[in-house]
């Protein structure tokens, strides 16, 4: 029974780490895969999600509704950014990085000026679950389930809907997709909005586990960036899942034995070594592997 509890605890640690990385990075990787742009305001969009959740929670809405509201609100904000600023920078990836950084500074300082240094936090829903000598947080178990559900939903969106078909066509060859009648401008706007919405959604979900402050986004960006760098842009779902699983394999033991900070350092070192081996990320390596298997089999 004791060993069983230990195994469960290790699996749980691993699951929470993977779910955290996945939630932090999903919105970023959706945008990167489509437009080859890293949205540096990602952390601030997560912060906006947390703020929306906190404000609507205080207004008396139940927490799941707050999360949905955050998704919609931040998704809309993302669409506005795309129309006003980001779409002028397609094809100039470095300039896009710089301009989204400017937006991130504006958002965090603007939030500080409008809402003050912090908002009331949201209590963690769900209690704890005892397995042997270990206790697990029900909320984190829910988050693991939610992140799996989001990945499934994204896979459905990209592989089973007309939007997904057009999006994949645009990713492969935007000029050809346009020639065949796909409105690529609309696809870009919807994808950016979806990525922003996912950031808001994750921010709202992670809000109960953090204190809600204007600069809270900063704690999410480092893990999110590392996950995206390791994942690569070749395939959104393969990149996000492959990279967060791989990285939590590194982070779980290091974080467990040496503390949370060294866990983060180990992530950076792992990322350096992984990109040295797979310069285009885990997703490209996975795709190549599956291609080769399809050819030989």
């Amino acid at each position: 029974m004791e060993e069983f509890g230990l195994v469960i605890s290790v699996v749980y640690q691993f699951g929470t780490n993977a779910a955290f990385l996945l939630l932090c990075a999903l919105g970023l990787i959706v945008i990167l895969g489509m437009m080859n742009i890293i949205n540096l305001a990602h952390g601030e969009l997560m912060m906006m999600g947390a703020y929306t959740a906190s404000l609507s929670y205080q207004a008396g809405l139940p927490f799941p509704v707050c999360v949905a509201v955050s998704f919609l609100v931040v998704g809309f904000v993302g669409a506005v950014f795309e129309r006003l600023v980001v779409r002028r920078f397609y094809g100039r990836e470095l300039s896009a990085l710089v301009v989204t950084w400017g937006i991130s500074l504006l958002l965090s300082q603007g939030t500080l000026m409008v809402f003050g240094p912090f908002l009331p936090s949201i209590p963690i829903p769900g209690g704890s679950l005892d397995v042997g000598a270990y206790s697990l947080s029900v909320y984190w178990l829910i988050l693991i389930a939610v992140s799996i559900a989001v990945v499934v939903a994204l896979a459905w969106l990209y592989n089973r809907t007309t939007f997904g078909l057009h999006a994949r066509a645009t990713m492969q060859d935007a000029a050809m997709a346009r020639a065949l009648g796909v409105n690529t401008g609309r696809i870009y706007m919807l994808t950016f909005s979806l990525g922003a919405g996912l950031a808001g959604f994750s921010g709202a979900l992670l809000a109960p586990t953090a204190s809600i402050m204007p600069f809270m986004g900063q704690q999410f960006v480092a893990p999110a960036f590392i996950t995206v760098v390791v994942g690569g842009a070749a395939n959104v779902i393969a990149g996000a899942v492959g990279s967060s699983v791989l990285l939590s394999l590194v982070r779980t033991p290091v974080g467990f034995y040496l503390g949370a900070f060294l866990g983060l350092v180990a992530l950076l070192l792992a990322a350096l070594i992984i990109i040295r081996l797979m310069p285009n990320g885990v997703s490209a390596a996975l795709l190549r592997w599956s291609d080769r298997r399809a050819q030989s089999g």
Partner: protein
Amino acid sequence: MKYLALLTGPEDIGQSRLFWIVFVLLVLNFVLGPLWMSEFEASNVSYYLLNLPMALGLCLLWGYCGVLSFGQVAYFGIAGYLYGIIAGNMRGDPWGPLLGEVGGLAACAVVSAIFGYFMFYARVQRWIVPILTLVLALLLETFLGQTAGYQWRVGSVQLGGYNGMTGIPWFQLGDFTFFGYSFYYYVVLLVLVSYLGCRALVNSHHGKVMLAMREDPLRTELLGYDIRARQLAVFVIAGVLAGLSGLLYVQWGNYITPSQLGLVQAALPVIWVAVGGRSKLLAVAISAYALNWITYSLSSAGNQYALVIIGGLLVVVMLFFPDGIVVTLARNMNRQALTRLLRRPGRS
């Protein structure tokens, strides 16, 4: 003569005789400055100047080489902290500060070489370099922020957590200590040497290869240049220049805090370079000086809008002046001068 040609070459603003006369007058203005500046004003001017090497390094990297880094402040911090540790432990030794300076710059070179090796020899995509360098800076900030308490000390120097390292010694050579006017001259000299060195670099053969890599890395490689090694070399130079700024900063203020490596500070070099115009060294030097002066005045007035102004400036410049304000102005000035010359009657 050959070396003079490197300075007057085409890859920076200003080739005319008039330009060099103005340039020499400007340098003279800085040299003679202490005649009319108080020691306090000279110290402020040293502060505006001391960030120039970091800006110039980023300009080389981004504008001339096409490699963007968001983490130049990491080297700023590494050099500053290491100088504090070495010079602080050798307090009383007349050559301690010089050793600290050499150690700080060497550490920057080593860290940037290791970090750059993994990125450039993997031939990663362009967007990965700024992201990973930013993560490096953020991790260093997090690490230094949690070093409060007595157990975090190196020799007799405490790292000091979020309050930072204080009481860092002045720079000294032998028995001569640099502060006040002498520190001002020391900064002016180092900044001038950095600028002229960068200018000679971009006009050299290596500079041409840098431009070629920016325009088309694949074609440059097919012409027989090892772009990995050359990108790495520029990355190391930029790291050392950022380290130089860090050294001058701690010698100027005698303290450094982890927030010097934070997200906000990391944005500043990018803004100096973007506002000036990344394709010209002199434009970057001018904008870095001007923006440092503005932000210093704003922040010492306790202005909470400083960040909003900086962020807004960045967005506006990227939207409306993609080549940078100073570069756009310089180009228009040249064009106006040209049209005036052409319109002059009697010259056809």
